[in-house]
């Protein structure tokens, strides 16, 4: 038997004011990915070939390196948000869910960081 009022017990348990941030993040990144992915796919198609030298020279144009880094960052973010929902929907037991969600975060930070670092390395030349 608690002496706390019903209102006192539910206060602070509800919305943490961030309920729609995942939804918005997924939509805004989706809108950004429409032009970015189409630009990338059709640029690859228009290159004379996909050789080592050709691609490095192409990525060294400032605008290309910038857009590809942007693409890779937004892509990683969108992928993280999407795969997260899949785990939340199908994995119900606490431990596997926690490991799954942390694993996804780890893999995405790793892939995003490595991908963008690789782009920068090519863009700035070594």
């Amino acid at each position, binding site marked *: 038997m608690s002496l706390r009022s019903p209102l006192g017990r539910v206060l602070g348990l509800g919305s943490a004011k961030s309920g729609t941030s995942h939804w918005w993040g997924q*939509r805004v990144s989706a809108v950004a990915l*429409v032009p970015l*992915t189409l630009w990338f796919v059709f640029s690859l*198609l228009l290159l004379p070939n996909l050789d080592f030298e050709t691609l490095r020279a192409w990525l060294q144009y400032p605008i290309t390196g910038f857009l590809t880094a942007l693409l*890779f960052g937004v892509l990683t973010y969108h*992928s993280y948000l999407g795969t997260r929902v899949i785990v939340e929907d199908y994995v*119900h037991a606490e431990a596997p869910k926690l490991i799954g969600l942390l694993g996804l975060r780890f*893999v995405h930070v790793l892939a995003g960081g490595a991908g963008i670092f690789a*782009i920068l390395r*090519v863009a700035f030349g070594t």
Partner: protein
Amino acid sequence: MTVRARPLSPHLGYYRPRLGSVTSILHRITGAILAVGLLAFAYWLIALASDAAAYATAQSLFASPLGLIVLIGWTFAFFYHLLNGVRHLIWDSGRGFEPGARRLGGWTAIGGSILLSLGFWASLRLLGRL
């Protein structure tokens, strides 16, 4: 906490596949496939940033029969997820819920992604990139 096996409501196998359910399930499956593709994309960029030998290894992996099948699958997954994603954005704006618009959109996403994938690989072939 232990999870007890409780009765479940009818699941996927119970319902007849319909355009709406198939396009929705495909959206999630292609999304998961593309998430794996992100890792391959990262690997390809790392190879490009390393040296010519590492890049040649990556190219030969992607150009192998299995690699090509996987790449074609990723191409379809990409175009499908893109087209169906645009449908979701239209729905988010509160439009396109009429039966006619839903049918047209669903078939456009399926047919369009097959056509765009075929077009993309045919162009690669015709332009002599393969």
